[in-house]
């Protein structure tokens, strides 16, 4: 429980959660996470920006006591998801005079998610400001980064952007600063893949919108503070761009080794053709790593045997996730083997309505792969290489 002054009159009052290992009962957290909340003290008014996950409510309250806060005039809710807003009911009770600052979509959500009374709320519009006395907070609506109500708050004089989930990372860093950019780049990319990628075009639009601000520091609601905003903003420009990389991601599962042989042969064939390959054995895969690989790859090849009449459930899970995350993948196909029949390829195809990728001819064979099947795998590798050349990401070779 530590209060840190991150800029003059601006304090971090949130909580680290270094040993949390799962988010949304879905997303692995190899580095834990943090729920960052910030206190902004002007000459006349005080604002609290976001709260913390209810599991850490005591920590937020203790920090406010340590910071000797006797009045909060505004509680700003950038995002209604409970890992940031969950402690709002308690904070609103402790500071009965505080106005809860929300946009219209957020108002609807805090009423339904947290039972907040409308009378406590002050509804703001895009670019509205509040004056704390020498500190101006400007609200910028950034819908679908990653919910309908998401917004960011900009402290104009100090040039600090309180970006909530935008530019965040699940990373528990005691200094709250980026110590090693490489590590935070990876954690941020993973976070982007899991949380932001389904809304890539909205993220890109809002990146441009906040890009017009003169930002000195980005203080997100998860992970460390960026004191070199250009690094994370350039990374977001890259991830949200339409450019794909000369990479093939192969999420696969194998039961008796046939599909695995095909995956290994395809991996070698693609390597020989100058293509980067990222195979993921789904039995041992951290889905965050797989999501991160999907950010850039031009092609996905799903490797799965047929179980009973359809794809292996591990492959179904991966396909379902990929369809939800909607990466910018350009080409997709399926390889694998079946014993007596089934509808594996059709079932998988039907699971990907949101993907806008071109389907390449699958290599789906009966039994263990023989020499002819391995040649079919090489033909597939040729086809993938040709497609990568067509879109200009692989040289003539």
């Amino acid at each position, binding site marked *: 429980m530590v209060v840190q002054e991150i800029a003059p009159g601006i304090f971090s009052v949130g909580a680290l959660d270094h040993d949390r290992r799962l988010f949304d009962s879905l997303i692995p957290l190899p580095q834990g996470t943090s729920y960052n909340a910030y206190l902004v003290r002007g000459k006349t008014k005080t604002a609290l920006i976001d709260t913390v996950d209810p599991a850490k409510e005591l920590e937020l309250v203790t920090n406010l006591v340590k910071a000797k806060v006797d009045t909060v005039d505004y509680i700003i809710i950038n995002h209604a998801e409970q890992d940031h807003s969950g402690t709002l009911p308690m904070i609103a009770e402790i500071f009965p005079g505080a106005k809860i600052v929300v946009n219209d*979509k957020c108002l609807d959500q805090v009423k339904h998610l947290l039972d907040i009374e409308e009378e406590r709320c002050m509804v703001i519009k895009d670019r509205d400001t509040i004056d704390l006395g020498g500190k101006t907070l400007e609200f910028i609506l950034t*819908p*679908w980064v990653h919910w*309908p109500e998401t917004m960011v708050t900009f402290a104009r004089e100090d040039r600090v952007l309180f970006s909530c989930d935008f530019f965040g990372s699940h990373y528990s860093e005691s200094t709250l600063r980026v110590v090693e950019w490489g590590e935070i780049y990876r954690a941020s990319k993973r976070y982007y893949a899991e949380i932001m990628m389904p*809304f890539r*075009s*909205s993220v890109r639009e809002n990146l441009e919108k906040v890009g017009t601000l003169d930002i000195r520091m980005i203080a997100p609601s998860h992970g460390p503070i960026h004191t070199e905003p250009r690094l994370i903003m350039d990374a977001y420009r890259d991830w949200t761009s339409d450019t794909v990389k000369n990479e093939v991601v192969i999420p696969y599962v194998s039961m008796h080794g046939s599909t695995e042989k095909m995956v290994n042969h395809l991996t070698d064939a693609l390597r020989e053709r100058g293509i980067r390959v990222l195979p993921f054995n789904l039995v041992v895969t951290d889905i965050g790593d797989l999501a991160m690989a999907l950010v850039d790859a031009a092609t996905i090849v799903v490797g799965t045997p047929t179980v009973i009449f359809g794809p292996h459930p591990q492959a179904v899970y991966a396909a379902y996730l990929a369809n939800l995350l909607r990466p910018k993948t350009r080409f997709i196909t399926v390889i694998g083997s079946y014993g007596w029949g089934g509808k594996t390829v059709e079932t998988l195809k039907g699971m990907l*309505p*949101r993907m806008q990728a071109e389907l390449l001819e699958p290599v789906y064979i009966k039994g263990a792969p023989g020499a002819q099947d391995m040649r079919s795998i090489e033909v597939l590798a040729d086809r993938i290489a040709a497609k990568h050349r067509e879109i200009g990401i692989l040289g003539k070779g």
Partner: protein
Amino acid sequence: MDSYQCTICGHIYDPAKGEPSMNIQSGIDFSKLPGDWHCPICMASPDKFVKV
């Protein structure tokens, strides 16, 4: 009359069907939907829709 698709969640507004869950009858052009209309699936505003 054209159908429009939500670029956020993929939902399609088809004027021939209307939007029964929102009491929007069939036969209403996308441009004639009420001012506060939004995607019934993800709440996105009409500017997030593209013609399909």
